[in-house]
């Protein structure tokens, strides 16, 4: 048995993992924490912009017959809001949390493919700019977040608004797919010794499952938006009924992606909730196996119910019955998870800090969204409420209540780990009550509005419809929630400098990330932790069991077996590189070019190929054997 690293060795290890200083380091870093932080800052900015769009629309709808927005501006606003929130915020922020947390929870120094993570971010940023830069020049998609043809086809969607939307999706989906492969490979092959499948933290499970779902669902939206661009650019006939195409084909492919996407967003949130509930209840999560199996169940069901977005299309009745039953069945695993969280609180000794408050707000809000989802899953009832404000209320309850509330809780929970300082509890609680209260005040009336016949995506309505008062309440609530969001961000900003020092483990957490200093050094762990339970920090409270033997002078990680996590070999981990950024730039040229000419797919492939060759060119000695050997 060997000794722990000496301080001098630990310093040399830190140097091996350190980024170059300054701008070059910024552009070349492959540190998962820096990459994730970028994602999160970008997302915060986008959430602010999308929130302002939402507020603008709510003001327009607050009173009947308002003229402050033209229909064009309104249509652009909801399209930009929806596309931003679904493609550029919800999915990426969950990936960001995985990129930041998964290596830390696994006791690792890096992700499986660090450069791929850097590439994911740069490409994602390309998608962000793809949508928002043209917006600054007045070219904004105006057909919603699911641009159905023929409205988005060559006949009715002139200009480049639709193309921009479609290629923004290609950007973000390539980025998301790369991130998912990265996370899944990390979870499968880079778990700490002893972390068998049964000892994987729920959050890590949730991200692995969401990653697999991403792999099997996102290709559908890339395929369908490519078909749409081809219809628009080179006159293919996929969605042209007059030439044997079918407009409903678009909807099938879109929702094959679109429904799993909801769970890709929700499962990581369920992972946050599980971790927070466990820590703040001071007991092992009740029903760990039930929670994980529920996640797997949700993931499997998710691919069997896309048609419930299309009940009003007029499909055969037998199909409707099947998809009704399949969609409602999701209530079972989701309900079991809720039970496990409440049971953990019930049997534990909860302490009510802000992260746990967010979990309570999540349960009270998300369950409403889940139950309205059961209603919307009934084919006949859905045909009344789909495309109305009832559905607007439903999916905001699910996405904000079910995913953003846990995310905000997670943000408060891991903020001290990331920054070394605690957020202000007082401001945190203020933000919590403003957001949860404002949200419910703002969105609950929309259920009623939908039942009273108010369709989605209308820029105005006349006084005679009787929708005015509830819309005013909805606007008021949204404004309160937005104010709460600003308080939340202000708290994060202020606490970075002025928060109380957190120390490595302010909450008494159970998982490995709480074993390292806050903020963690670039290499995360000096030693390889060894895991003996689901809650290693609770079962090894005197001293953390570790292994030594990874290289100190270069970047190296441990690869373990898939099921038992027994050590297999030591893998070199790549150094910082400019290649991911160059590759992302090359891909950006190709994607943007393809909006204007199909030939971009040919000439644009050249720089992409060059950048990828630079990226993957292995660094080794010149050959001294073989026909092309160097003779010295």
């Amino acid at each position, binding site marked *: 048995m*060997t*000794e*722990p*690293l000496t301080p001098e060795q*630990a*310093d040399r290890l830190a140097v091996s993992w350190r980024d170059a200083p300054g701008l070059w380091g910024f552009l070349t870093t492959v540190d998962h924490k820096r990459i994730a932080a970028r994602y999160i800052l970008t997302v915060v900015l986008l959430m602010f912009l999308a929130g302002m769009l939402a507020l603008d629309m709510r003001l327009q709808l607050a009173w009947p017959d308002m003229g402050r927005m033209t229909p064009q501006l309104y249509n652009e606003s909801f399209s930009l809001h929806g596309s931003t929130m679904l493609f550029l915020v919800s999915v990426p922020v969950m990936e960001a949390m995985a990129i930041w947390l998964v290596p830390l929870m696994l006791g690792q120094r890096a992700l*499986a*493919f660090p450069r*791929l993570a850097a590439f994911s971010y740069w490409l994602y940023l390309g998608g962000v700019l793809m949508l928002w830069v043209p917006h600054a020049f007045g070219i904004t998609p105006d057909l919603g977040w699911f641009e159905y043809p023929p409205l988005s086809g060559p006949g009715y969607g002139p200009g480049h608004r639709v193309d921009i939307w479609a290629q923004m999706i290609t950007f973000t989906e390539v980025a998301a797919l790369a991130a*998912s*492969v990265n996370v*899944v*490979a990390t979870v499968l092959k*880079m778990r700490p010794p002893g972390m068998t499948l049964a000892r994987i933290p729920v959050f890590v499970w949730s991200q692995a499952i969401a990653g697999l779902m991403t*792999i*099997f669902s996102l*290709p*559908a939206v890339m395929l369908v938006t490519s078909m749409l661009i*081809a*219809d628009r650019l*080179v*006159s*293919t*006939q*996929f969605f042209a009924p007059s*030439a*044997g*195409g*079918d407009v409903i*084909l678009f909807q099938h*492919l879109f929702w094959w992606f679109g429904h799993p996407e909801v769970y890709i967003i929700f499962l990581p949130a369920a992972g946050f909730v599980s971790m927070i509930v466990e820590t703040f209840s001071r007991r092992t999560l009740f029903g760990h196996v039930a929670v994980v199996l529920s996640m797997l169940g949700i993931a499997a069901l998710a691919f069997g119910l896309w048609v419930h977005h299309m009940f009003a299309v007029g499909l055969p009745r037998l199909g409707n019955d099947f998809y009704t039953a399949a969609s409602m069945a999701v209530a079972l695993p989701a309900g079991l998870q809720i039970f496990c969280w409440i049971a953990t609180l019930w049997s534990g000794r909860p302490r009510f800090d802000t992260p746990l408050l967010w979990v309570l707000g999540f349960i009270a809000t998300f369950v409403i969204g889940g139950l309205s989802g059961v209603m919307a899953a009934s084919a006949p009832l859905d045909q009344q409420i789909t495309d109305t404000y009832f559905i607007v209320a439903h999916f905001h309850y699910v996405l904000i209540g079910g995913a953003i509330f846990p995310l905000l809780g997670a943000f408060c929970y891991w903020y001290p780990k990331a920054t070394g300082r605690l957020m202000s509890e007082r401001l945190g609680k203020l933000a919590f009550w403003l957001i949860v209260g404002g949200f419910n005040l703002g969105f609950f009336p929309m259920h009623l509005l939908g039942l009273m016949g108010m369709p989605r995506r209308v820029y105005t309505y006349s006084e005679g419809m009787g929708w005015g008062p509830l819309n005013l309440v909805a606007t008021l609530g949204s404004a309160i929630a937005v104010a709460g969001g600003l308080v939340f961000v202000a708290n994060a900003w202020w606490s970075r400098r002025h928060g109380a020092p957190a120390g490595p*483990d302010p909450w008494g957490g159970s998982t490995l990330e709480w*074993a*390292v200093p806050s903020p963690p050094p670039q290499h995360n*762990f*000096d*030693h*390889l932790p060894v895991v003996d339970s689901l809650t290693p920090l609770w079962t090894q409270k005197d*001293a*953390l069991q*570790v*292994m*030594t*033997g990874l290289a100190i002078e270069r970047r190296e990680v*441990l*690869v373990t077996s898939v099921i038992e996590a027994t*050590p297999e*070999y*030591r*893998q070199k981990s790549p150094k910082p590189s400019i290649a991911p950024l160059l590759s992302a730039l090359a891909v950006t040229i190709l994607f943007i070019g393809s909006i204007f000419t199909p030939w971009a797919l040919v000439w644009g492939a050249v720089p992409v190929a060059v950048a990828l060759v630079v990226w*993957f*060119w*292995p660094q*080794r*000695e*010149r*050959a001294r*054997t*073989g*026909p092309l050997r160097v003779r010295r």
Partner: protein
Amino acid sequence: MSDARPCKVVGDVSDLPESASGAKHLVWWGNIGFMAIEGTAFALAAGTYLYLMSQTQGWPPAGTRPPDLFWPAVLTLGLFLSEIPNLWVRRRAIAKDERGVRFGTLGMTILGLLLLIPRGIEFAHLNVHWSDNAYGSLTWMLIILHTSHLITDIGDTAVQAVWLFTHEVGDDQFADVEDNANYWTFVVLSWLPVGALIYLAPRLG
């Protein structure tokens, strides 16, 4: 800097090897991940084809001849025969035979480029333009989807061959050759359903 918690050393990994091959290797899983993504795309494209076929009277639509069979038959035969050297290269990679992988990847590159000839001629014998009707669009979509994979892997093999001839080959590169050979098998196998749809489905419909 050291870990925030006191620690107790219970083992050491310095005796472990510095690389692995096959399913033990980390990159192998990344490769599988991307194959899963592309396989999903192929499956969805095939599903799209079958969906529109089921929605349409007459397949191919009246007035359109099904694509000719000669050149795709040549290509299919060629793809299958290419598996013989491909699997040989894979075995040489696992055996860490430097000479074997160098000439093997070179051979596979040449073979791949030769296979692009029948593939190129195929395009001229589809007997439909992508803008004619949805059937034409689907036919072109499937063949372009497959061709892009073919070209990508040939390019990858070519770069690999250049590198292998000019550098000392380490364990990681043998693993790369193995992964690349697996990918070629993926490209060959994915042609079976895709080719069947393009060339056989119009003769059944």
